[in-house]
Structures are given as structure tokens and as C-alpha cells.
């Protein structure tokens, strides 16, 4: 009886999870397959053959290629800036020993996460117009910097969590200056956290649409914004090809992360996990 109830329950749960899993995975496969469609119009699934025409079309379209470079450049700039500022923030938080001010500053650095990206985009556009900078490269980079900063602060703080101030004190008692202690002891220990933060910052920035949509100009447009506006206008499978390539880019990034850091570590093992893979 007990086993019967168990197996019925598990089957029902399994079926439900299966359906949602299909909703999550199927659209990816659908885009992937359709991007190789040899037909010149949007037909039914599956396509009758295989062709690379949409990929060729992507690279021959100057608008897409320029947007791709803009996206990569903005992602790189904003992620590097976020890593520098995020590491400084994590180091600064280490120096604060009282609970209340540290929690307040912690919340301050996490706050962009709780503001919808649309609001960030709109607010930055208003502010930059008043200051006289206006929309464009600087504005998009600043928006992305703000959006990814909480990610970096969190991952660097997590990496520094184990070491705390005693190590700095130890280094300083052995004759190091504070600066030496930070550069020779703390930064190397935080390296993994900075790398993880950087990778995720890149991934988020490369994909940001809601804030960027407000801040683009006719000459400075990021790739996802171009793709989304084309998607609304026409059904062209070049978008599928571009989307698949962006996904491959993320796959490569995640694979690098897995090889260098080990992806299971990102989840942690909680209080009861085995300690072998910590």
C-alpha cells in the first residue's frame, strides 16, 4: 500500500515536471532546427533539408555584425568596470565590523537587483539627458554596469567570506603594509569570485534588452535590441541563426567556467552536503 501511493505520487509529479521541462527545452530545439531551414519562407516544422543560408545572411548583414561588435564591446567594458567596483565594494564591506551599517551598505549594493530593468533604462535616460550626455554608448555601458554590479559584489563577497580580517591582520603583523596585505593575500583568494562574477556579468550584459532599449541611438545599437525589434517586424530566420550563435557563446562561457571552477560548486552543498567537493 505504502509503495503504491509512493509510485502513484511519483508518476504524477514526474508527468507534471515532464510537461514543464518540454516547455523549457522545446523552444531552444525549435530555434536550433529552424535556423538550418533551406526554405526562403517560414514553413511548418520540421524543415525539409539542411542549409547554412541564414548564418551566411547574418554575417553579410552589416547591421547585425556592427551590433554584435557593439554588444561585445559594451559587455566587456561594463563587466570589467563592474569587477573593479564590485571588488572594491566587497573589500570595503570587509572593513566594516558593526552589523547595522554593513547590512545597510550590503542592501545598497544589492538594490539594483530589485529595480526592474525598464525603470533603470528610463531613469538613466532622464538623468543623462539632464546632465547633457544623452543616450548612446556611455549610457548603455552605465546601465549594464549597474545591472551586473550586484552579481559581482555577491560572488566576490562569497569568495572573501571564509578569510575575513584575521588574515589581513596576520599579514600586517608580519610586516606587510595594508596595501600589500590586500594585493598579495586578499585579491588572490578572491580571484575565483571575481572570475565567476565576470563571466556572469558578461552573459547578462550580452543579453540585456529592457534597459538598453531606452538608451540606443541610430548608430549605437546592441544585438539583442536589434533582434527583438526585427522579431516584431518580420519573420526572418536570420534571427534564429543569430539566437543560436548567442546560445553557443553562452555554452562556451559556461564550459570554461565548469573547467576552471567546477559548476557544482556554484550551488554549494548546504549544511548537510558531503564536504568532498567543496
Amino acid at each position, binding site marked *: 500500500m505504502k509503495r503504491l*501511493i*509512493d509510485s502513484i*505520487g511519483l508518476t504524477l*509529479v514526474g508527468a*507534471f515536471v515532464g*510537461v*514543464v521541462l518540454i*516547455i*523549457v527545452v522545446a*523552444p*531552444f530545439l*525549435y530555434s536550433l532546427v529552424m535556423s538550418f531551414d533551406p526554405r526562403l519562407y*517560414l514553413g511548418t*516544422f520540421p524543415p525539409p533539408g539542411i542549409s547554412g543560408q541564414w548564418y551566411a545572411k547574418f554575417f553579410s548583414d552589416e547591421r547585425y555584425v556592427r551590433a554584435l561588435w557593439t554588444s561585445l564591446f559594451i559587455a566587456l567594458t561594463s563587466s570589467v568596470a563592474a569587477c573593479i567596483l*564590485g571588488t572594491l565594494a566587497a*573589500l570595503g564591506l570587509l*572593513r*566594516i565590523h558593526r552589523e547595522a551599517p554593513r547590512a545597510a*551598505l550590503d542592501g545598497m549594493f544589492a*538594490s539594483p537587483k*530589485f*529595480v*526592474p530593468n*525598464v*525603470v*533603470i533604462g*528610463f*531613469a*538613466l535616460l*532622464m*538623468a543623462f539627458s539632464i546632465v547633457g550626455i544623452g543616450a548612446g554608448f556611455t549610457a548603455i555601458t*552605465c546601465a549594464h*554596469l*549597474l545591472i551586473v*554590479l550586484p552579481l559581482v*559584489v555577491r560572488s566576490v563577497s562569497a569568495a572573501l567570506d571564509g578569510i575575513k580580517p584575521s588574515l589581513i591582520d596576520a599579514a600586517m603583523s608580519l610586516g606587510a603594509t595594508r596595501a600589500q596585505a590586500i594585493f598579495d593575500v586578499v585579491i588572490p583568494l578572491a580571484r575565483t569570485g571575481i572570475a565567476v562574477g565576470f563571466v*556572469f556579468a558578461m552573459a*547578462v550584459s*550580452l543579453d540585456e*534588452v*529592457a534597459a538598453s*532599449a*531606452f538608451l540606443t541611438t541610430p548608430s549605437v545599437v546592441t544585438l*539583442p535590441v536589434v533582434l527583438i525589434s526585427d522579431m516584431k517586424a518580420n*519573420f526572418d530566420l536570420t534571427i*534564429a541563426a543569430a*539566437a*543560436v550563435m*548567442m*546560445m553557443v557563446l*553562452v555554452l562556451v*562561457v*559556461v564550459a570554461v567556467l565548469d573547467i576552471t571552477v567546477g*559548476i*557544482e560548486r556554484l*550551488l*554549494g552543498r*548546504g549544511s*548537510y552536503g558531503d564536504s568532498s*567537493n567543496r
Partner: protein
Amino acid sequence: MKTWRRINWPIMPPLIAVACLLVFPLMIVLSLSTRQVAPGQVGGIVGGYQLTLDNYLTFFHPAYLRYVTDTLWLSLIATTIAVLAAYPVAYWLAVAPSSWRRRLTIVALIVVLYASAVVKVYGVSIALGPMGLRGSIAEFWGVGMNNRLVTSTVVVVGLINFLTPIATLMMVAPFQQISPSLSAAAQSLGANRLTAHLTVIIPLCRAGISQVFMLVYAASVSAFVIPLVLGRGQVAFLSNLVYARFSEVADFPGGAALSILLLLITLCVTLGLGWIVGNPAAKWRGYRS
């Protein structure tokens, strides 16, 4: 000299960045939202400053109310389904020993989570488009292909696609705080697995699960790309309305008021966590050592 060294220098640059890029712009939006709209002016902004609440009062117009209910209601359906599906997967990830299957699942989840939203929304839009399953959905509801109900369903599917990986990864943490031997203990005392789970594990994780639910709901409420593309203008979220105020009608004070409304809704959702939480898991952890 001493006060000079006592200043926490490292924290200054990031603090200034957040102040300049978030606090200052939000203040401007707040002040803009209380200004009168002037049709014909750039951005609808009048030269002189006149305080008004008109931009907020328009929200009570029935036409606006539909956007609010669409945002809140469709998000609620999608979040519920995503969290329910994420639950068993997250539980398994939390208690299962390290294996290639667990590893593969984590890699897949992270790839799906960070795979471009553009890919996801495009996949859904063609898979559930006129050449895809849109006809079957229309048949299921017994309405025409261009009915709002069909579009709403497509938006909900898009949201589920976007929210489930987030929910799964977030939900692993609360389960990791529970000793797996508790379920085994309940089963050895005669409970079946389901009862053991419902009466032992869920009460212990209640706080964590409701927290995940609220965070996922907040992410759904502020979704932008999914309703923009899949809603086809029939279904729009508040975020899309903010964008339309900027790109279509150039009514910046109206857009500012909408931004503040959207911000307030997401803040209420995320801060609303506080009152649900009566945390028995924390109590249990106290007995552990």
C-alpha cells in the same frame, strides 16, 4: 591624519557609482512623475514646475486597470506553475549525491538560465506561432486564433519557459538546510514518502519556498521582452507601457509615474516576504549542534 586613514576608501567608488546611476536618476523620475504633461513639448515636459498628481490618477482609468491585472494575474499563473515544477527538481538536486546526472542537470539549468532571452522568446514565438501550435491552443480554448485568450496563454508559456530555471536554482538553497535523514526517519515510523514529505519537509522549508515564490513573482512582474514579443500588442505588461510612453507617445511624466508604480509593485512583492516568514527551519538548525 588619523581621520584620513579611518575613512573606508575602497567602498567610496562603488557607493558613488550607485548613488549617481541609481539614486539620482530615481529622484529625477520621482520629480518628473509629478509634473504636468504638455502635449506638443519634447517629452511632454513643461518649462515651469507645477505639482500635480494627474499622472497617477490616470491609473484608475479602466483602460489602465487591464494592464495592471494582466501583469499581476498572468505572472501569478506562470509563477505558480514554474515554482511547482521547480520544486521536485530542486529537492532532488539538494539531496542527491554528486553524480554525472546531477552535474548534467546543473549544467543544463545554468545554460538554460543564461541562454539569451532572445533565443527563448523567439523559440516560443515560432513554436506557438501560426505555423506552430497556435491553432491547437485556439482549439483547446474553443476560440479563434487571434483571440486574447490564446495570446495570454502564449505569454504564460513564455513566462514559464523563462521562470522555471530561475525558480529551480533558487529553491535548492532552502532544501539544503534540511537534513535528508528526517524524511527517512518519518518513513521508518510508517509514513509513506508523500506524507513524509508533506508533513516534515514542507513545513521546515515553508519560509524558504515562499521567499523563492515572491522573488520569482517579482521577476515575472518586471518581465519586458516576453510580453513585448509574445503579447503582439494584445497583451502588454506595465513595463511595456513604460516603453510605449517613451517610444510612441513621448509622454515622459506619464512614463515616470508608471515607472514609480512598477517599482512600488516589485518592492512590495519582494519586501512582502517579511510577514510570511515564521522560520521553523532556523529553529531546527539551532538544535543540530
